[in-house]
Every structure is written in structure tokens, then in C-alpha cells.
């Protein structure tokens, strides 16, 4: 299906075009071009919604690396659709907002290139069917997130945050890749659809649990679940549009996507339920408790995102129980949890996106995000205040906003655990709703902090910002207004969303269901005096109470256990790694060439030596040796003597003459061994080399007799002797064996093939002419090197050493 392919590739193509178009559309006008991309894709995707709700899906495959079973296959179903719509929809709004948020002086072209890169990668993650392709896009989102967080790279904090997010998410990604490979080893396929079809095979495999854990680590790092959440608050150093887009609406939800996607594969197992729901709930309460103590509004929102992601995660965990139970009433209860997760996913994107944009406006207009320095802005910025009110109250779970609906569904799902009576311990079924409820109370508190501490109360003196504060320009308000109205719209028409968008996604999570019947619960704002509404009332009452008396109990954050942070652990670990790595490297990178030569030789000896040990028996075959004549033996003897004598040469002239003796003796050996061409070349080259050596000596100082320590001599001597022995033994072994007939016979028809009688010449000039040509090139380069080294002018001011 071409639409899906377009959706992935258009952002990448646009990213490549941005630098060029930026030449014509200068300044912030480039933003309009960028905004057209997600808007176009959003409309394109929206057109497919009706057919998706009929249950059809779109696939497209073309082979990429067929030998490794890697195909570029795309798959669009209901689940992918939710994410694709979020990516393109929120993407359009964020780009619109960023046009007026970023100053003209910023590197706008670079910003949009990264943003489009991210958009393409993220669409690739949710639309890929092949796991390897998914992994590639997954890491690409980490990289583009790194680039966007470090957008203001001159700030130290930005660089720190970017590195942190990169390290954590990419490490998680590698774990995930390992999980994918385990899945491949079980099923021989990388295709998601085929994996889901083979879930009985996977469930029966002994690698089931390791694969599940590895995939979950990938999902948890990306979705900032406890204890991997520490990168998200630091990622807030990115420009606010990026925080709104990547770090609340889309990228951090990739982990949610992965968990939802793999629910059919892994959900039958109780471990999956326990890990996903417990980590989710723990993240939820940890995030919300930490959010309350933040003073930076963006940090507060970051912790709130962590908390909300945990909430969605826990809902998915509860939803997975539908695979374990057989009673239809229970199944309906648990599928409702997944439904609530997907519903809240959309709601969270709307209200959190608008809240981030509000914070961006405050930062933009007043130059601060610190709630201690804000206050009394409601009268100055009434529209911004309304948006903040809608967003926060929705997040707190109050009517008439969409967050209320999903919060009710959340409570219901947590309560359903008890009714289903599936948990081994009843206390756990009580604990889950309790933790969820406490987390919600803290959520309520920080939502109130956002609204009341920055918009109501006294205006602090001196007022932040250089100029008198006023309402943001209307262009900046459009995007948050659209999101805020969505918050309201979804509250009044939740079931339209349920049928058209959430329904098809439910089918993707629960493939065992044939149709939507029983999968999509009717959402009601009011469903009688039941437990969830009492819980909401309780949240409001306790929340208001705690908020009023915040300053009296805020001191508990100073207590020891809460002061201990995972951040410190991360920093210590990183520092330890760096120092240890430096220490280890310094032990062998001595900066001395001789040591490196020694390493090379030692490796050579060890490598070949170990190879020799593996040989079952040493067979030296001397029978085919040619006879030795006296004169030949004499030459060899002379060579051995002169080569050893070089080691003891006191003056360099002796060494050069001995080297010449070696060279000319080899020329004589070449004559004996019927190699006239070699003999001639050797004589010429040896002569020129000797002359060259002597010439150089004219310029160079006499060498010193080596004064080595005994241990050094022994070390070098041993390495040298061992190399010699290894070479000799290997050569002798090779001569004793002949596995293949020689190919040289072919060249003996040289006169017919190449028209020459000298076989060596025809090989060089005809058969291997290209080699010879490149050899000439090597000579030419060496000649150039020699010439330039001799002729290159010395640096000014550097005196000739002899003049000193």
C-alpha cells in the first residue's frame, strides 16, 4: 500500500530538502513548508480510517536483505493508526507552534531537519512489520532525539541531557534487538504478524522468558519507566516544541506501542502481567510524587509524563490478563483495561501537549519557568490561563474533560483485578487500586500547582521578564487551543473515537477476537454511584486538603530516602566507567612504536602458534627436496652469518654492507633457482638501495650502539626467535602438503594467450596488467612522498639543527 510507504519516506525526503529550500524560504517561513508534511500525511492517513474500522489492514513488502530474512515490510492496522495519527497530527500542531516559538536567530533549518528526521523514524517504528527494520527506526528516533535535545549545544545541561537519553535508550534498544534475535531463533521469522500467529510455538519455548525480558527492557527505557526514567527530566533541556512532541506525545510512547504490539505474543504468561503492571504502577506513583516537589514547570511536566506513562503501562499489564482467563465476563473486564490504556494514550497527548505549549508560552513571554517566580498571570494572559486550566484539570481527572473518562476507566480496571480473582494473593488485588489511588492524589496535587501557583495568587516582585507581560501572540495560541478543544470534544463524543480509532487497535492487540463485539465498551461520563466515582471524589477531597497544607508536609522530601536519587547512581557509574577505561587503555597504549610492533608480533606468534597446536600431527616431508650443491650451501651459510652479524654491527656502514651482502646473495640464489628476471631486478634494486642508504648517511648522524637493559634484550630476542621459529615451522608444514594442483600450468601457454615467450613478463604485462599498473601507481606515490619530504620548505623560524 503506497500510502504507508509515503508516510515513512516523505519526512525523510523533506528533511533532505530543508537545507535547500531554506535558501529561498528564509527565516521562519521555512516552517510552513515543514508543516505541510505532517498535515498532508495526517489527511492521507485519515482517509484510511473508515476502511480500517471495517477490519481491513494494509501491508506492503519489498525485499531488502532477503538472505537474512530482512524485508522492508510495512503494516498498517488499528494500533499503528493511532500512533501514526498522533505523530502526524501533534506533529503539525507542534511545527505550527514552533514557527513562532523559535527566534529567527536560531539555526531553524537544522531544527526542522532533525524534527522531520524524527518524524520519519517514528512513523517507521509504528508502521514496520519486520523487527529488524523496526529496530533500525527505533534507534533512529533515539539519535534524532539526541540531536534535538542537544539543539542548544552550547549549554552544558543540554549536552548532558542529550548524552543521558542517548545512552539509556540506545542501551535499551540493544537489549530489545537481542530479544528480537531470540524470537527469530524460535520462529525463524522477523515478521510481527507471523510472530503473533506463532504465539503457541513461542510460549512453549524455553527462551520465552529471556526474550520477553529483553523486549521489555527496550520498551521500558524508551518509555521512561522506573528505574530508567531518569533521562526524561534531563531531556527537558530541549526546546519546548521538542519536549511537547518527542518527550510527551510520541517518542516516549514507542515503548507503549511495543508493549501493546507484543501483548498477543507474550501475554499468556503471568510474568508479563506482573512485570508490566507492577513497573507501570511503581513508575506512576514515583513520577507523581516526584513531580510535586519540582519548581521548574517543565521538570514538573516531565515527571508527570513519567507518571502518566506508567499509568498507561499498568493498564496494558492488566489488559494482558484477558489472555489468561477463560470466562467471558472476566475477558471483557480485562480488555476494557487495554481500551482504557489506548484511550488515555490519546487523551494524554492532547492535554499534555497543550500544557507543554503553555509552559513554552510562559517561558517565551516571561523568560522563566520557575513557579516561585510566577503568579497572578490569569488576568494578564486569560487565554493561556484557560488552556492551562483545561489541560491540568483533564490531567487531574476532573469533568468535563477527557482525562476524567480515562481516569474512571483506570480505576475500574484496577478494581476489576479483585473481581476476577485471578491473582494468587488477595492482598495484591487490594494493593493495586490503592497504589493507583495514591498516585492519582499526587497527580491531582501537581495539577493544582501548575494552575494555581503560576496563574493565581500574588504577582511576584520584581516581575520576571524585561518588558511588561501580555498575552501571547495569537499564532502561538492556535496550536494549544486546538488541543484544548480536543480535550473538551473527546469528553462529549468519546464513543466516536472508540468506534473508529480505538476499536481497530483493540483488534490488533486481541487478534483472537473475530469482530469488535465485546471489545469496545461504551464510554459514559456517568455510570452511577459506583466505586470509581467514589475514588475520584476521594482524590479531589484529599488532594485539595494536601494542596492547601502543602508547605507543612513538603519537608518530607528532605528525608534521606527521597534524597537518594538514581541520577547520582547514573553519574557515579558513568564516571567510574570513564576512569576505569582510561586506566586500562593507558596500560597498553604506551605511545612507543616499539611496543606496538611487539604487540603485532606477539599476536602473530600466538595466533599461528595456537593454530599449530590444533594440528593433529606434524608431517614434514623432505622427500621432494631438490639436492643441495656445495656452492649453494655456501651462499646460504654466508647469508645466515651476515644476517646475524648485522645484529652486532658497531657502525652503520658495516650494517649496510652486510645488508648488501644479503641482497646480492639473494640475487645469486635467484640465478640458481632459475629466475633470471628476479636476479636482474634484485641486482639493480639492491644497488640503488645501497646507494640510497649511503647517501642518507651523509646527512644523518652515526648510530649509537644500543644500550638496552638485559630484560629488554631478552624480551626482544624471544619475540624475534619465536617469530622465526613459527615462520619456519609453518613453511615446512605447508611444503609437506599439497591440497590443490598448481594453477601455474595455465601461464605456460603464454605464447598462445599473450604472445610472449617470457612467462614472468606475460604475467606482469598481460595476465595481471592491472596489478602492475597499480604497482606503478604505488611507486609514483612513494616518489611523490620522497620528493615532497625532501623539498618541502621547513617551517619559518625553525633553525637547522646543525646551526645550533
Amino acid at each position, binding site marked *: 500500500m503506497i500510502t504507508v510507504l509515503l508516510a515513512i519516506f516523505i519526512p525523510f525526503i523533506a528533511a533532505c530538502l530543508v537545507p535547500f529550500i531554506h535558501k529561498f524560504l528564509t527565516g521562519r517561513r521555512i516552517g510552513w513548508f515543514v508543516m505541510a508534511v505532517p498535515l498532508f500525511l495526517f489527511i492521507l492517513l485519515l482517509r484510511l480510517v473508515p476502511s480500517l474500522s471495517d477490519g481491513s489492514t494494509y501491508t506492503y513488502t519489498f525485499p531488502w536483505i532477503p538472505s537474512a530474512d530482512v524485508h522492508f515490510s510495512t503494516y498498517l492496522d488499528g494500533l499503528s493508526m493511532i500512533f501514526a495519527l498522533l505523530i502526524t497530527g501533534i506533529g503539525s500542531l507542534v511545527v505550527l507552534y514552533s514557527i513562532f516559538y523559535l527566534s529567527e536567530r536560531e539555526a531553524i533549518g537544522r531544527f526542522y531537519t532533525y524534527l522531520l528526521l524524527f518524524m520519519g523514524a517514528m512513523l517507521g517504528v509504528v508502521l514496520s512489520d519486520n523487527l529488524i527494520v523496526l529496530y533500525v527506526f527505533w534507534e533512529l528516533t533515539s539519535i534524532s532525539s539526541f540531536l534535538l535535545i542537544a539543539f542548544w549545544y552550547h549549554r552544558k545541561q543540554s549536552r548532558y541531557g542529550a548524552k543521558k537519553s542517548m545512552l539509556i535508550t540506545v542501551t535499551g534498544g540493544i537489549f530489545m534487538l537481542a530479544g528480537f534475535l531470540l524470537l527469530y531463533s524460535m520462529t525463524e521469522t522477523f515478521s510481527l504478524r507471523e510472530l503473533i500467529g506463532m504465539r503457541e510455538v513461542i510460549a512453549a519455548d524455553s527462551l520465552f522468558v529471556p526474550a520477553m525480558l529483553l523486549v521489555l527492557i527496550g520498551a521500558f527505557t524508551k518509555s521512561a519507566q522506573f528505574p530508567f526514567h531518569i533521562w526524561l527530566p534531563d531531556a527537558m533541556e530541549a526546546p519546548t516544541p521538542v519536549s511537547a512532541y518527542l518527550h510527551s506525545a510520541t517518542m516516549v510512547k514507542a515503548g507503549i506501542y511495543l508493549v501493546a504490539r507484543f501483548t498477543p505474543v507474550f501475554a499468556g504468561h503471568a510474568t508479563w502481567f506482573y512485570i508490566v503492571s507492577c513497573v507501570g504502577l511503581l513508575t506512576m506513583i514515583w513520577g507523581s510524587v516526584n513531580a510535586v516537589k519540582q519548581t521548574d514547570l517543565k521538570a514538573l511536566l516531565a515527571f508527570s509524563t513519567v507518571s502518566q506513562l506508567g499509568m498507561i503501562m499498568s493498564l496494558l499489564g492488566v489488559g494482558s490478563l484477558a489472555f489468561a482467563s477463560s470466562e467471558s465476563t472476566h475477558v471483557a473486564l480485562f480488555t476494557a483495561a487495554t481500551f482504557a490504556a489506548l484511550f488515555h494514550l490519546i487523551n494524554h497527548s492532547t492535554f499534555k501537549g497543550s500544557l507543554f505549549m503553555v509552559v513554552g508560552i510562559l517561558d517565551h513571554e516571561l523568560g522563566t519557568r520557575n513557579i516561585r517566580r510566577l503568579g497572578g498571570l490569569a488576568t494578564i494572559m486569560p487565554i493561556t490561563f484557560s488552556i492551562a486550566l483545561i489541560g491540568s484539570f483533564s490531567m487531574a481527572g476532573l469533568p468535563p474533560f477527557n482525562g476524567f473518562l480515562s481516569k474512571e476507566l483506570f480505576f475500574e480496571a484496577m478494581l476489576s483485578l479483585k473481581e476476577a480473582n485471578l491473582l494468587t494473593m488477595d492482598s495484591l488485588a487490594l494493593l493495586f487500586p490503592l497504589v493507583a489511588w495514591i498516585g492519582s492524589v499526587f497527580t491531582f496535587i501537581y495539577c493544582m500547582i501548575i494552575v494555581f501557583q503560576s496563574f493565581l495568587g500574588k504577582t511576584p516582585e520584581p516581575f520576571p521578564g524585561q518588558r511588561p507581560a501580555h498575552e501571547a501572540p495569537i499564532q502561538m495560541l492556535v496550536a494549544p487551543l486546538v488541543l484544548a478543544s480536543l480535550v473538551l470534544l473527546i469528553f462529549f463524543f468519546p464513543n466516536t473515537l472508540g468506534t473508529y480509532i480505538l476499536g481497530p487497535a483493540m483488534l490488533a492487540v486481541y487478534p483472537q477476537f473475530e469482530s469488535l463485539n465485546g471489545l469496545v465498551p461504551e464510554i459514559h461520563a456517568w455510570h452511577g454511584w459506583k466505586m470509581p466515582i467514589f475514588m475520584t471524589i476521594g482524590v479531589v477531597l484529599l488532594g485539595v486538603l494536601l494542596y492547601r497544607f502543602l508547605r507543612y508536609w513538603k519537608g518530607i522530601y528532605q528525608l534521606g530516602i527521597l534524597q537518594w536519587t538514581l541520577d547520582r547512581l547514573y553519574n557515579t557509574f558513568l564516571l567510574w566507567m570513564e576512569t576505569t577505561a582510561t586506566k586500562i587503555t593507558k596500560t597498553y597504549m604506551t605511545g*612507543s612504536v616499539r611496543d606496538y610492533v611487539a604487540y603485532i*608480533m606477539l599476536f602473530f606468534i600466538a595466533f599461528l602458534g595456537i593454530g599449530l597446536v590444533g594440528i593433529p600431527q606434524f608431517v614434514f616431508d623432505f622427500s*621432494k*627436496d*631438490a639436492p*643441495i650443491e656445495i656452492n*649453494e650451501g655456501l651462499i*646460504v651459510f654466508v*647469508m*645466515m652469518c651476515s*644476517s*646475524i652479524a648485522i*645484529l652486532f654491527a658497531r657502525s652503520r656502514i658495516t*650494517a649496510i654492507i652486510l*645488508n648488501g651482502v*644479503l641482497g646480492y646473495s639473494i640475487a645469486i*640464489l*635467484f640465478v640458481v*633457482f*632459475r*629466475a633470471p628476471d*628476479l636476479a636482474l*631486478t*634484485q641486482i639493480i*634494486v639492491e644497488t*640503488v*638501495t645501497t646507494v*640510497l642508504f649511503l647517501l642518507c648517511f651523509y646527512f*644523518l648522524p652515526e*648510530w649509537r650502539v*644500543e644500550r*638496552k637493559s638485559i630484560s*629488554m634484550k631478552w624480551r626482544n630476542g624471544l619475540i*624475534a626467535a619465536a617469530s*622465526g621459529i613459527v*615462520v*619456519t615451522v609453518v*613453511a*615446512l608444514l*605447508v*611444503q609437506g602438503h599439497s591440497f590443490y594442483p*598448481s594453477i*601455474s600450468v595455465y601461464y*605456460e601457454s603464454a605464447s598462445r594467450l599473450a604472445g610472449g*615467450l*617470457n*612467462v*614472468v613478463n606475460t604475467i*606482469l604485462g598481460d595476465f595481471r596488467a592491472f*596489478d602492475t599498473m597499480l*604497482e606503478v601507481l604505488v*611507486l609514483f606515490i*612513494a616518489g611523490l*612522498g*620522497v620528493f615532497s619530504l*625532501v623539498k*618541502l620548505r621547513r617551517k619559518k623560524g*625553525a633553525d*637547522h*639543527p646543525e646551526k645550533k
Partner: protein
Amino acid sequence: METLITLLVGVLVAVGVYLLLSKEMLRMILGTAILSHAIHLLLLTMGGLKKGDVPLLQESAAEYTDALPQALILTAIVISFAVTAFLLVLSYRVYQESGRGLELRGQKDE
């Protein structure tokens, strides 16, 4: 004959490596030159020694010496010449620039 030459190759390799491990640049250059001598002989030995006539095609010969190693060695001789020449000029230049003689950094006990 092959065994004898192989032993010679072993000795040359040992000498070459020892020189390569020394501190003085000139010794290192000599080491590379001797190593390439050794490898040329090794290549030739692999093809068999004195097994036939000179590889110049003529009617009288029945069998020829293996020509392939010879072609390889011919290339290698020229390349090793180029390398030696370059290294020599490089060491000359190093001396000119640093003026500190031709010794590499060594251990403390040397």
C-alpha cells in the same frame, strides 16, 4: 634445498623482527628490508626449487619452473624498494625537524 632455504628464511625473519623492535630508526628500516628479503625467498620456496627449466618458453624444455611466485616476487621487490626509500627520506626529515637524532621514545631503563 627447500628445507635449507626455509631455515634461512626463519633466521632472516628473526633478525628482521629483532631489528624492527629496536629503538633506532635506521635499524628499523634495515629490519623491514631484511624481512622483505626473507619473504621473497619464502615465496620462491613455496613454488618448488630447481624443479624445471627457466620459464622462458622454448622447444627444448620439458618442464618449467613455477613462474607465478616469480611474478609476485618481482612486484614485491619493487614495492619494498619504494617503502625503504620512503622510510629513509622520512627518517632524514624527522632528524631535520627534531634535530634529536633518530631514536624513538624508549623505556625508562634504557
